[in-house]
């Protein structure tokens, strides 16, 4: 039993990890077939992961409504929104549009979800402005460098900036293509080393926090 609970999962990780790392170097159709099947499986398992998340949400908000916690009315709105969307979704066969005609599900999507999500994002424009005004200060030499680079790129990426200071376009191109690219590259290399090291540790059971209870 203890083996099944502790070592079993680690063994599964070890085997699947090694097999799918090795698969990369094996061009034989048998190995390709295996990759095909398993990636298809991952698509399906991905669906179950979503169910897992949603069930928790059901639980949290149901509890809030039951206990009449502060703001349970909003949880109720959430429930109505969710159940309403699901009902209309089934009614419309899960399609937003059939032959170019919008369904009721599509209506919810277009006139509720799209503006809601789009606006959540647009608020950022305001926050970035206030962040720029309140915290974007040349406190140190580093911050000053950051500031200057940011202003050049902001100028160089819009027609007005290029019109007022013609060199800003080329300068921002150079910053992006050379200075920025070199830093991003170093970061990418470093992060990738980290990814590989971590994957190796996971496969060999040295890193098992993903299973929960790291100290077993």
């Amino acid at each position: 039993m203890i083996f099944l609970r502790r070592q079993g999962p680690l063994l599964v990780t070890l085997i699947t990890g090694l097999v799918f790392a090795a698969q990369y170097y094996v061009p034989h159709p048998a190995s390709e077939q295996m990759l095909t099947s398993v990636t298809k499986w991952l698509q399906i398992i991905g669906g179950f992961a979503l169910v897992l998340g949603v069930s928790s949400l059901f639980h949290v908000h149901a509890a809030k409504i039951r206990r009449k916690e502060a703001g349970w009315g909003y949880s109720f709105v959430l429930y109505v929104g969710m159940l309403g969307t699901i009902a209309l979704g089934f009614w419309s066969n899960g399609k937003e549009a059939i032959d170019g005609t919008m369904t009721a599900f599509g209506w919810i999507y277009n006139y509720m979800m799209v503006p809601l999500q789009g606006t959540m994002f647009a608020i950022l424009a305001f926050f970035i402005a206030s962040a720029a005004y309140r915290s974007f200060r040349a406190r140190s030499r580093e911050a000053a460098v950051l500031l200057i680079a940011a202003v050049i790129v902001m100028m160089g990426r819009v027609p007005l900036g290029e019109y007022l200071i013609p060199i800003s376009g080329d300068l921002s191109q150079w910053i992006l293509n050379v200075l920025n690219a070199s830093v991003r590259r170093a970061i990418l290399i470093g992060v990738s080393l980290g990814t590989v090291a971590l994957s190796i540790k996971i496969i060999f059971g040295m890193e098992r926090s993903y299973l929960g209870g790291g100290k077993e």
Partner: protein
Amino acid sequence: MLKTSASFVLGSSKSSTYPRGYASGFDSPAALLNRRFEHPALWKALMLLLMTVLSQSWSPVFAQTDIQTKTPLAPPQDVRVFDTPSDGGDSLTVIWAPAPYDSAAVRYQVLLSEGTSVADPATMKVVAEFPANQRYVRESKWPWWTRPATGDQHQYTLRSGRGVELKSGTLYSITVATVLNDERSIAAPGQAAPEPNWINWNQMNNLLLALLFGGIVFYAIGTARKREIFLRRIPGLDAVDEAIGRATELGKPILYMTGAHDMSDPSTIAAAVILGRVAKRAAAYETDLLVPHREPITMAVCQEITKQAYLEAGKPDLYKDDSNFFITSDQFSYTAAVDGIMLRKKPAANFFMGHYFAEALLLTETGASTGAIQIAGTDSDHQLPFFVTTCDYTLIGEELYAASAYLSREPVQVGTLRGQDIGKALILGVLGIGTILATLGILFDAQWPKLFLDFFRDVK
């Protein structure tokens, strides 16, 4: 077509009818090459040796050869056909010698037919046609250790698809023809059957680097288990304890986020490790901990970690299962909900660990407006500027991983960090040496730097 039959020359045999830029000794490796596909290991060793000797520039030899004037159009020489090595089958490669008439005006045709017997090569199906100054081995992606011929040879790889169908295990005849205006001269067909291979030799450098790096990591972890390894102090880390202390003083909760990715991502794992430490301190100080999630698997894992931390702090009774709670997988509904929590519960310390997308600024700006101490640690490079400008401390990129190692002092983590440092040092070395060699290569027009450089290329 009259000359076609007259010009049948066996691809692999030495031809004296045509002056080529070749020392005669070159034909023996060609013969070896044919055997190579039966004994890859033997071939590998021989090839390595050979290439070391031969990988000099042969252009001077070319220069000395005088090109014969006005010969009738000769067929391609030294035509060799073989199963494309290191692939999944359904592909054949043909290689032939360069000719003095190689130019944009002359064209090569690759001809294909099924079976071994070819009654008339002229009836074979044309599967490719291109100018004669193209498709050299040196232009292909083969690294030196799998290159089936010297760089000056022509090569063409036929694959299934787009009008051609090659089946593994079936024997095909292939040849190459030279075309100039209406004149066509066809070499003798060679035969080969496509076979699937078990190993892609082109990617051996990738495998070797994976093994080498894996070895370094294991070695470093082993060392870390035996003795203390030096880690440089990461200034942002002291702030973590400070922030928890302040939250305790104010009697306000701590908000901890693990980022947008799932548990398969290293940033989330590092975030989970740091959560373990934060939760332990929070338990010890009896401060409330709030961990909103957007990914169910991560939530489940973090619940376990938090529980464990409370247990280790000796306060299992204080642990609440719903301190980790799921909000939604959707980025902005999550952000809006967390912003709501920040404004309503006014946590004294906000931790942003893990990977973040556009929601970063919205979270940190709202957090800053509530006056909380904010500590970020992220490997999402496109969000780092905001964290740097809006948080009190930011662990930049790998400093996040370093932080989890620094906090835990766990041999595995410290060792990994050390292993990565060695990896980086090696890469720095490669960048330095590689640049010097590449410069020398272009300065002296030499090929030998490729022996080193190819090993650090992505070749497939």
